[in-house]
């Protein structure tokens, strides 16, 4: 019968087609190269746990997919009404149902899912485990950047406040305690773990651990307003010695500006930028600060007794130690080879500072990243002259 032959061919073509598509996908989507946010290339234990859970699920789902879809294709070819079929002649058998079959295809998937559920439960429980010596990092999400605080001596005062890029030691658990300063955000470094929401009024914990050194890209994944799409962050995993060096660098006395331009820039910073941005060690100004922050204003840092508070704008104390700026959107250094960890206790990124982007940003921040400063959301256009921009840039470059 023609239908029989056709249906066999259709089924074979279907299976081959699906397998080919699957092969294409597996070949293409798991690779981390050129896909900094891929979820299928775990680089840490937690992400690996998730991967180990999801791969069997994908395989089972793939098999069911093949059975159903190829089944449809086969039936369409096998049971099609041919042109010479007449109603009333050789009509199909009128089957109303089959109770054992129904019970079977209720119970079998349920059992299959029950088996997978065991692994699901194990993984859910394991996600919150962390070692006792875990590094503690406070994370505060706000429109549209992330702040990190490290309290190194557990005295209740944060010793390092930085933004956009957090550092963790390779191989050691890091517990990120995630809060929000305004709306709900979500902290997500796909290579290291799943995401966790930053919610006002609550603190949520997320355990990150990296198996090897590198800079891991992240992205805010809970819709948080205008610039949600470009609210990025990085976690930099450093070998233990370099991590210690990083801590030392971040808590060291800041370098003072030496050139005339940089000094003028510092004055400008105190007069304009310091209304929102903090650089540890700078004296406060007479200008009234913006007051819309809902976070308690404290004195942070070891270096200064009279530090300015960070007021809903990134703390810029060691600005140039970061690899990225503008909410993690742009590299702060050009030709900066992606950090792989070379074992040397060198924490400053290499490459040429991305001066043009710093200037563009100072010229009109809202052009680089959508913001609404009239509503206290984001950085206002300060209307700086080109000379002032040069001076400020010179000053920012000294913040090491």
């Amino acid at each position, binding site marked *: 019968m023609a239908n029989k032959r056709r249906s066999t061919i259709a089924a074979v073509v279907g299976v081959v087609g699906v397998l080919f598509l699957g092969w294409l996908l597996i070949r293409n989507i798991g690779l981390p190269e050129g896909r900094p946010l891929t979820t299928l290339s775990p680089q840490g234990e937690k992400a690996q746990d998730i991967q180990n859970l999801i791969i069997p699920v994908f395989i089972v789902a793939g098999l069911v997919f093949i059975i159903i879809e190829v089944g449809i294709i086969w039936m369409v070819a096998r049971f099609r009404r041919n042109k010479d079929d007449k*109603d009333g002649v050789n009509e199909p058998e009128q089957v109303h149902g089959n109770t054992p079959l129904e019970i079977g295809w209720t119970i079998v998937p349920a059992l299959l899912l029950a088996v997978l559920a065991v692994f699901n*439960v194990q993984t859910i429980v394991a*996600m919150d485990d962390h070692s006792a010596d875990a590094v503690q990092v406070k994370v505060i999400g706000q429109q549209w950047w992330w702040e990190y605080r490290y309290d190194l001596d557990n005295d209740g005062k944060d010793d390092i406040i930085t933004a956009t890029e957090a550092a963790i030691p390779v191989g050691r658990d890091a517990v990120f305690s995630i809060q929000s300063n305004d709306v709900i955000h979500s902290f997500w470094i796909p290579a290291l773990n799943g*995401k966790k929401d930053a919610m006002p009024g609550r603190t949520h914990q997320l355990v990150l651990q990296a198996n090897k050194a590198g800079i891991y890209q992240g992205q*805010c994944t*809970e819709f948080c307003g205008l610039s949600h799409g470009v609210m990025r962050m990085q976690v930099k995993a450093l070998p233990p010695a370099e991590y210690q060096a990083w801590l030392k660098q971040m808590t060291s006395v800041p370098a003072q500006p030496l050139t005339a331009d940089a000094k003028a820039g510092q004055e400008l910073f105190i007069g304009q930028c310091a209304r929102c941005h903090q650089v540890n060690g700078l004296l406060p100004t007479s200008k009234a600060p913006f007051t819309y922050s809902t976070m308690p204003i404290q004195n942070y840092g070891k270096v200064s007794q009279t530090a300015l508070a960070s007021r809903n704008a990134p703390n810029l104390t060691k600005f140039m130690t970061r690899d990225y700026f503008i909410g993690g959107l742009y590299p702060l250094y050009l030709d900066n080879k992606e950090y792989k960890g070379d074992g040397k206790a060198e924490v400053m990124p290499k490459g040429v500072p991305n001066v043009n982007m710093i200037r563009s940003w100072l010229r009109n921040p809202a052009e680089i990243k959508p913001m609404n400063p009239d509503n206290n959301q984001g950085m206002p256009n300060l209307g700086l002259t080109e000379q002032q921009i040069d001076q400020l840039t010179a000053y920012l470059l000294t913040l090491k």
Partner: protein
Amino acid sequence: MAITEERPPLELTTGEDLAPATPPFGVFTRPSATSGWRGWLFTVDHKKIGIMYGAISFLFLLVGGAEALLIRLQLAVPGNKLLSADVYNQVFTMHGVTMVFLVVMPMAAAFANYLLPLQIGARDVSFPRMNALSLWIWVFGAIFFNTSWLLGGGADGGWFNYAPNSGVVFSPSHGIDFYAVGLLIMGIGSTVSAVNLTVTVLNMRAPGMTLMRMPVFTWMTFVVQVLLVFALPVITVALFLLMFDRLFGAAFFDASKGGDPFLWEHLFWIFGHPEVYIMILPSFGIVSEVIPVFSRKPIFGYPFMVGSGIAIGFMGWGVWAHHMFASGMGPISVLAFSLATMFIAVPTGVKILNWLATMYGGRLKFTVAMLFSIGLVGMFTIGGLSGVSHAFAPADTQQTDTYYIVAHFHYVLFGGALLGLFAGMYFWWPKAFGYFLSEKLGKWHFWMMLVGFNLTFGPMHILGLQGMMRRTYTYTQGQGFNTWNMVATIGAFTIALALVIFMWNVVSSYRKHKANPVNPGPDPWDARSLEWMIPSPTPEWNFDEVPVVEEFDEFWHRKYGHDAEGRLVQIATAEEVAQKGTAKNVHLPSPSYWPLVMSIGLPLVGYGLIFNLWWAVPGAILVIAAIFGWVLEPSTDPDAGHHDDHDDHGDDHDPSAAALESGDAVGETTDAPAETAAETEEAPVG
């Protein structure tokens, strides 16, 4: 519940003039036009209401589709500057809300309104004026919601509008006010409609139409109405809190004042998840009608189809927090909701296997309706499987809020709900309008749509797993998102082209029909359920005589019997069995002005809440006037004095059916013709 009395049925002499006596109340006279624009505006006929639901929701499909095209244009290339972040946020929010509340739900309501009374053998729904009210409330609520575009911008917080981003501090435009008030208004309409249809199913079934003889579509619609009755109060509460936070300075969701953003998340998703089933189950019902007809086999495992539908509806209440696996609600909650979510896949799988089993061994005729139905089975399976993959909570923390989720729910709601609705359109079009849609253009429509759909949403699985986040207005070079985004944009325009073909099909088929009318007859597809037993297009009074139902697939069994080997044997042609549509003087509920008047009042109250409370005064006056008008307008019922009279012909058929049959409706019975036990002239007064 019927109160049975020992009295002979009322008799109606044929040819009696049923025109109402002199109107007693002047302005409260009921309108009488049944054609022209008045016939549509003031109608209480469930069929006209259904058609209007369908037509207007299709217009909103074009609006939501245009918004979708804007989204895809913006994301076609990295760093695109076509839309600003602000406009993009409004567009994707309005796209989501429009597709959910202004397209899929009302389009399903179109089928429910049109078909549900026909499938249970009723003359109308239980409360015809309430039915008109729910239509117009929805229409004016939807228009109100869309006027936000002209009054300061649309809502910009996503369809889920998580607090506190939805508060006035972070979203100072009026968009989210329109969202809150608009959905509250539309919620009134949906609640009225849900109660109405629930009562209709329970009370208006034809003699012998027991619950387990109802067509699967009616069953699924019934489950949906029950879900709506319970889900809508939850979103109403949530929207009230949001409205008070925004308009009157309350702090329900403000953590710094002791409120909690979690409250909104839970309330929204307790509604939001059953909402998913509210959108998909009607299409499951439609497909369950189409596949048996074009396989020439009864639906496989009818009780399991019904049971799994009920199970989905029931379990749908225990899985809402799977939208919140990343929200930090704690491992115990995550565990419970993760397991519940995994197992809701079981009844869904049962449905898919039953559709396949219905096709197995059948003689498949690939009409456009059948193609769309098979398309649903294939595409929904993909959405179901990706759904299982994020039932696993740890996996979901990688997938949630990425394009993987966007792919998933579009496979469910487009590949599921929308394909099913198109199947229904091609299937019931001749019944509703008396002409066929072109099968040739329909096939173009189907294949373009299937290809376009997979091109658009298939790549989104890959984008999501590669880490592309949802609700982003842009992406950059070097993230690896370029290729698949371009493919998705091309796919979206293919879908748009398919929709153009559909519209052209409607127009050109109508023209062809006008030039050369060919009546499709009562039963063009050799179908199974009661609506095919009456002429096409459906007469205003539906059934000449209300059929007495003896079996599931009653109409089919009047046409076909079985021989000793279980083979089909035709015992009568459709024309022999079908009703002629020649009944005269069937008493039908009269049209009314007041549903429309009341519905116009509500958006005015809405503008008042948002801009200036004085606006609410004319709105409130209209609503109150409409309530008085509604109560005071005369019933044109010829035996208005006999409202307490209930049918009693329970001795002719099984008692359970008789007990369920009458309800509050007024009915009178004439002499029974030979083959039906009783002819009921049931018409509700509404």
